């Protein structure tokens, strides 16, 4: 049902692997052209897919759930909530701070369909360069199909959505929940951020290092404490977080939460 765009998504990977011989990906235009059709077909197919692949799709969503919520009560976190994402224009939810690139893609006509989401999941920055989504891409078409089939169950009219799961809680990292109540000093955070922005660009470009601009305070604080406590593993981040006090982490969270996108 999504031949033009599935082909283009595959084409993206092939282009990378084999040099100049493959045609350039069909890109947005073809995906947009098939968008309405895909939505219609999805409505028909999603019920069956929901049951068949639901378990696998839910498990695959583990790669997404540090940033996204979906289900009853889902809220924007590091990424936007994903209820009713199918059929939605990219960058279109008024109460989420998208990257400039995502807003521009939506203004340019990008609508999330099974085809466009498949292309995006395959290689996010190939479809939306400078998107803030920090995800290297899901290589297997079967995985993407299973994930999207499951995610499709959260789009359209439904009355029995399961509750949204949290992106991160202090309890899962053995943190005292009171650390979330510390109010950070954004001016101090701006100074401390000098160390962060040597690696983390402010403008949403993701090349091996995630964007940290505009994060919810709780997600930011929990992530840094998880590194500090060794519960999340990354040598640079463990070293950086290791010497930050609770107040300094709160200050950084306050700064990056408010920070605007800029290079």
């Amino acid at each position, binding site marked *: 049902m999504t031949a033009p765009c599935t082909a283009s998504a595959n084409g993206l990977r092939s282009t990378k692997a084999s040099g100049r011989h493959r045609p350039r990906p069909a890109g947005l235009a073809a995906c947009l052209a098939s968008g309405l059709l895909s939505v219609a077909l999805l409505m028909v197919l999603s019920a069956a897919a929901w049951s068949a692949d639901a378990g696998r799709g839910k498990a695959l969503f583990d790669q997404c759930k540090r940033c996204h919520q979906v289900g009853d009560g889902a809220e924007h976190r590091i990424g936007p909530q994903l209820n009713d994402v199918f059929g939605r224009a990219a960058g279109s939810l008024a109460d989420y701070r998208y990257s400039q690139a995502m807003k521009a893609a939506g203004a340019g006509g990008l609508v999330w369909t099974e085809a466009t989401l498949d292309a995006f999941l395959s290689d996010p920055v190939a479809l939306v360069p400078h998107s803030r989504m920090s995800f290297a891409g899901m290589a297997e078409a079967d995985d993407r199909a299973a994930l999207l089939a499951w995610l499709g169950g959260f789009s359209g009219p439904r009355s029995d959505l399961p509750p949204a799961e949290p992106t991160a809680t202090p309890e899962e990292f053995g943190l005292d929940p009171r650390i979330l109540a510390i109010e950070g000093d954004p001016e101090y955070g701006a*100074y401390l951020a000098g*160390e962060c*922005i*040597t690696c983390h660009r402010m403008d949403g470009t993701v*090349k*091996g290092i995630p964007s940290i601009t505009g994060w919810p305070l709780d997600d930011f604080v929990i992530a840094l404490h998880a590194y500090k406590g060794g519960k999340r593993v990354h040598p640079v981040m463990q*070293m950086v977080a*290791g010497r930050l006090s609770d107040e300094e982490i709160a200050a950084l969270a306050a700064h990056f939460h408010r920070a605007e996108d800029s290079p």
Partner: protein
Amino acid sequence: MSKRNGESGLNRRHFLATAAAATTAVSALSAPAVLAQGRPRVVVVGGGAGGATAARYIAKDSKGAVDVTLVEPSRAYYTCFFSNLYIGGFREFASIGHSYGALAANHGINVVHDWAVSIDRDARSVGLAGGGSLAYDRLVLSPGIDFREGSVPGWDLSQQNRMPHAYKAGSQTQLLKAQIEAMPQGGVYCMVAPPNPFRCPPGPYERISMVAHVLKQANPTAKILIVDPKEKFSKQGLFEDGWQRHYPGMIERVGPDFGGDKVEVRPDSLEVVVDGEATKVDVCNVIPAQQAGRVAALAGVTDESGWAPVVPHTMESRADANIHVLGDAALQGDMPKSGFSANSQAKVCAMAVRGALIGSSVFPPRFSNTCWSLIGTDDGVKVGASYEATDEKIAKTDGFISKTGESAELRKATYEESLGWYAAITGDMFS
């Protein structure tokens, strides 16, 4: 395969002859300076990693309250970091070039393309080769490195086309790459490595990796000889492990116990003389011993070491509190001479300068550094540390290094991380 030792049973002669080497806080307000009138003036000399960052942060964070002039002779700056990746074919040359237009347009920095040729510390002014002079309330020197004359007998700057250093990125880097690509089949690339301390401790060895990567594809019988005065070098275990995996039999290193510290070169005949024995090579990459960029000596802020001692908390020269010295030129303690270090020091310096000139908040200084190196395709490694200011020096507090035996997936992620870092740090300097 690295530094030869008596048990290896091999020496440099065998290697070259047989090509069968077994390769194995508390925030505080400081009192603003009392200034005669007008905006306080900062002159930054040197538009590399340290100087560009310092100029940008002083101008950006003072929001126009400080007049910032950046003196840099080059119109386009090519970063030393990632220049090895250009040699290896992983980057286009243009991708490591940066201009100064954004610093002028976005932050109001007065960019002067000229050489600083004199510093009058009493009058607080900088003389320019073009004839003018610039008055300052604070002077920031970030001149990088210059080479010590005579450190490699037979080599001087007049020979840098016969035997490129390629240790200040730009035309030299392009020349070295062209020479490597023009090597005859089975030819020999030789690097004369520098003694400590020098710019970018893993840099020579990342370069060896990139040269080997190029030769493996285009000239697989070629050999690489490293003549090294040092007993050991940065990330040695990681590099040697990688060389063995990617380029077995290609690389040989002659350490000091086999004469690596007794080298001279003959540029006319492209010979390298190690411990009295001459060897003809096809490319000779001479990286001489180094000292602070000359303007630091002109300002009289260097000591007998050739580097400029600084106060760790502010990067102020120990010889003159109106002068700050950043990056490679500074004698500061434990931080390696790297673009990342210079950027880190520049932010501390910028905060101290703003505090002194306009009374803005001064927080406890923090320093950090991470150096990524590429050994082969998708095989990235890194070393890093955090530092604090003590009265004596910038002192290391914590650190990490990649491990041998890491998964290919992790090495690829480390390489991709370095791409993100390059984009971010160059934006933090030049945007």
